[in-house]
């Protein structure tokens, strides 16, 4: 042809060099994959032969103190699909669409929404009913690409909700997932959100097992490889200190109020009943809770999710006067029977007048009488004789302003107004504040569980008990029962003598002729008590009652709190009476 070939051979050499470089890059990389990284990649290819499916570990049960199962698991079923597999069987979509009377597009968009990966089981329908379940099982062979997966649901024994003891479980939240990354949680896992379910999450949870399903060339399951199976480890069981009968009764008593009730063994801190109202049904959360139910709970103005027994911080009212009694005795300020103060019905401090609840006054009275009558003026006068710092010290020794460390999450501190707090809050402050504090009003805030500890210390003659709900843990794997140990050593700095004075005062409240709770007394139970009424600027006053039985065979203390209950002796003490009566009868019948 016309033009001659004038290509420069030097260019040929360069072309060959470029080719060598290109091929070397490929060859080195392939060598790296096939020879250097062989073992790693080979084992990953082996993993690909199996489809790993979680076998859910059953969550631990809860039993009451008499080993009655109060919380257990029940299965509910989810319909899942394998996107990779169902892709090959469009017929399955038609059948599902026919059965559920839903357009295919809707089913597919549900799958897309829930899909984690092409080869992972994806939830299509939750909590399918029994009829559907049998239908799907019967037609399993025609419905390639689907599976039925059991999902545990919590069930509670009839009688009580125990909502604020048990708490509830639900899918792990995003924040929690981040925090618990190291504990092998993954999205969609169920965790305890409140109550014992949260507090004992690690013990109740168990460990999921893994099922290795072999898959054939077109991605269908062809059976399990049993040799590889990792069995789930069931969660451990909790044996509680709760008496389910008592719990049910206590819940029924305060059902219609807002408030809390606690029954505790004051010698060892075991809680026999703990109720907070309004409550909720914990079962609702472990199934798919409906939007309406959820709104009813979350937006209820009375906050059913709020555990008043450990989170309600309110002024304790006259119940708190006993702190001043102890302070006065420890520091030998007054003699309980010989020193008297006069109550004309009011007390004037500077230009301010502080009233007694009884406007006609109690007259001259000693300390026992003052406790019995719950006289305010006596305590105003007593407070002025006390060292404020000492009063703060004994408030703290008796457990106020700090957590009781009950085995429930999210407990609140309450408040003891010490000097630091007063300076910070009020700057300049005078004795007038202290007169309010001594009768348990103003900035003194306590929780019902703190009062349970307080009354226990008094009743047990100074035992530093720890209120608790879990008695024994049953470890499935080791088949071992482990009794939890709780400290109950004597509190230093509390003399028997001063506690005797308090107890005598409390005895008179119940058993004395003028005791504020005398109508709530029960013969033969040696009941002691103290009522309290917390002034509430926003509405009706809150009612308190603390009490215990002095009978050594019946060492139980009670704390009652009724929001807007008006008066401790009017609303709170009668509830305590019913509880004592019920439990005493139950106690004796069992014997």
């Amino acid at each position: 042809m016309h033009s001659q070939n004038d290509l420069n051979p030097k260019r040929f050499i360069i072309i060959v060099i470029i080719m060598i470089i290109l091929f070397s890059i490929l060859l080195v990389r392939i060598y790296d994959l096939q020879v250097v990284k062989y073992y790693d990649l080979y084992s990953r290819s082996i993993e690909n032969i199996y489809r790993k499916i979680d076998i859910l570990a059953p969550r631990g049960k809860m039993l009451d103190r008499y080993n009655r199962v109060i919380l257990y698991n029940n299965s509910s079923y989810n319909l899942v699909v394998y996107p990779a597999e169902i892709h090959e069987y469009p017929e399955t979509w038609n059948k599902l669409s026919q059965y559920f009377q839903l357009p295919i597009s809707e089913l597919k968009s549900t799958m897309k929404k829930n899909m984690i990966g092409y080869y992972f089981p994806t939830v299509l329908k939750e909590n399918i009913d029994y009829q559907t379940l049998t239908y799907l099982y019967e037609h399993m062979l025609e419905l390639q690409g689907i599976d039925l997966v059991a999902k545990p649901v919590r069930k509670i024994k009839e009688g009580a909700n125990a909502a604020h003891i048990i708490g509830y479980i639900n899918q792990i939240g995003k924040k929690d997932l981040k925090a618990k990354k190291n504990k092998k949680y993954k999205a969609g896992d169920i965790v305890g959100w409140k109550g014992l379910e949260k507090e004992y999450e690690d013990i109740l949870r168990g460990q999921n097992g893994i099922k290795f399903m072999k898959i054939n060339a077109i991605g269908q399951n062809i059976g399990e490889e049993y040799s590889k199976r990792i069995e789930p480890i069931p969660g451990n069981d909790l044996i509680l200190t709760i008496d389910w009968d008592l719990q049910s009764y206590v819940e029924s008593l305060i059902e219609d109020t807002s408030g809390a009730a606690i029954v505790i063994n004051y010698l060892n801190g075991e809680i026999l009943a703990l109720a907070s109202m309004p409550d909720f049904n914990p079962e609702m959360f472990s199934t798919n809770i409906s939007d309406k139910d959820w709104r009813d709970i979350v937006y209820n103005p009375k906050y059913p999710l709020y555990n008043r027994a450990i989170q309600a911080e309110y002024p304790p009212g006259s119940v708190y006067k006993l702190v001043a009694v102890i302070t006065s005795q420890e520091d030998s300020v007054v003699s309980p029977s010989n020193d008297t103060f006069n109550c004309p019905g009011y007390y004037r401090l500077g230009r301010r007048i502080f009233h007694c609840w009884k406007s006609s006054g109690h007259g001259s009275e000693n300390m026992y009488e003052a406790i019995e009558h719950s006289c305010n003026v006596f305590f105003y006068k007593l407070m002025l004789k006390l060292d404020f710092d000492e009063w703060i010290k004994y408030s703290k020794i008796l457990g106020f302003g700090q957590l009781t460390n009950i085995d429930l999450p999210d407990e609140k501190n309450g408040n003891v107004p010490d000097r630091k707090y007063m300076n910070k809050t009020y700057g300049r402050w005078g004795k007038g504040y202290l007169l309010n504090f001594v009768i348990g009003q103003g900035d003194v805030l306590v929780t019902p569980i703190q009062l349970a500890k307080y009354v226990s210390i008094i009743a047990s003659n100074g035992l530093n008990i720890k209120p608790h709900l879990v008695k024994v843990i049953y470890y499935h794997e080791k088949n071992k029962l482990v009794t939890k140990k709780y400290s109950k050593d004597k509190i230093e700095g509390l003399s028997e003598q001063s506690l005797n004075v308090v107890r005598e005062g409390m005895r008179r409240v119940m058993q004395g002729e003028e005791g504020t709770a005398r109508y709530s007394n029960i013969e033969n139970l040696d009941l002691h008590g103290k009522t309290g009424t917390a002034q509430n600027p926003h509405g009706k006053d809150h009612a308190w009652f603390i009490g215990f039985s002095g009978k050594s065979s019946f060492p139980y203390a009670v704390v009652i709190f009724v929001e807007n209950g008006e008066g401790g002796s009017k609303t709170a003490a009668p509830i305590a009476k019913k509880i004592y009566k019920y439990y005493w009868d139950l106690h004796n019948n069992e014997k």
Partner: protein
Amino acid sequence: MKNKYSLIINKLTDIDIQSIIIIFLLITVGLLSIYSATIYKTSSDSNAFLKQMIWVCIGMITFIIVYSIDKKLLLGYAVFIYFIGIVLIILPFFTSGDTESTNRWIKMGFVQFQTSEYMKFFLIIILAKYFAETNISKYSFLYVLPPLIISLVPMGIVLVQPDLGTSLILLMIFGGMLFASGVRLYFIFLLIAPIITIFAAFNQTVFYIWGVVLAVVIFINHSDLLSFAGVFIGNILIGIITPFVWDKILPYQQQRILTLFNANLDPRGAGYQVIQSKIAIGSGGLWGKGYLNGTQTHLQFLPEQHTDFIFSVISEEFGFIVVAIILALFFTLFYRWYKMAFKAADKFSAMLIIGGTTTLLFHVFINIGMTIGLLPVTGKPLPFISYGGSFLITCFGLVGLILNGNSD
């Protein structure tokens, strides 16, 4: 007439036997792997093995036709068929109704054509014609301009289809032929410079360093200050404008461009494919898992295993040794052909061979590079081995062109 037939027969007996043997070795490997890759497949490609056999036959006929065409004819119609090619790659924009899918295919009855396949031929032929016939001096930059424009038009159209892979192949055809034709290396540098400038513009430090390199290279090669300044300032301007343009375009457009270069950003999961491909290749080891025993292959972790990811199938079942042999076969083939080009009787023939060989070379590099995770997933098949009629015919056609160039 008799004379003409005997000419063709003469030409056929003259054929380079070694090339044909190597190609048939590669096709055999391909057929075996396609069989393995589709043996359990339930979808429409279940009879891919048989179909591929038929495509091989059609391919051989294509080869004979292209091989037998008189080169003078090619030279004569080069411009005409180039424009036919341009029309063909624009057509899919109008025929495919679905805006979501890419505009690469023309449907004719039940057969689909990827028209950009044939553009490779037409570009090779017209460029070969240019390099053979041009009177412009190699030492002038004007020498570069006509082939640059000829190449940029189809490249641009293919890029918006969008098909980065084919666009790159067209660029390689142009680059390879330009380089082999003996153009000054400095001109090639000038062509590449703006592209590097665009990428460098996204990082200030890199941009400064590049600016210095640019200045030095241009200064050494330019005698007069004016053209030096022109070229340099032009490049810098491109670099300054780039970030502004990038910020001005809409996020989905940015995403589209980024996906073009990095398929891992593709939500449909090309990243997943590459991981599975690497597992398949690596798990083959030195000797492979054995024919029909590749678990990755048979469990279909690679959705495109008989087409784009066929190399993973081979690597998993046959192992490194066989893979190295296949690479060696490709290398030998391309080496032979480039050598032929430099020994060809005339420049047109030589340039045909260069163009054809370069096309196949970069297909091999881009495809294998993709399966081993070195290059983005562009969906370029492996010559002679991947399943697919369109592309197999292209390959046979290119071999026809190459060996035709080699014949007298």
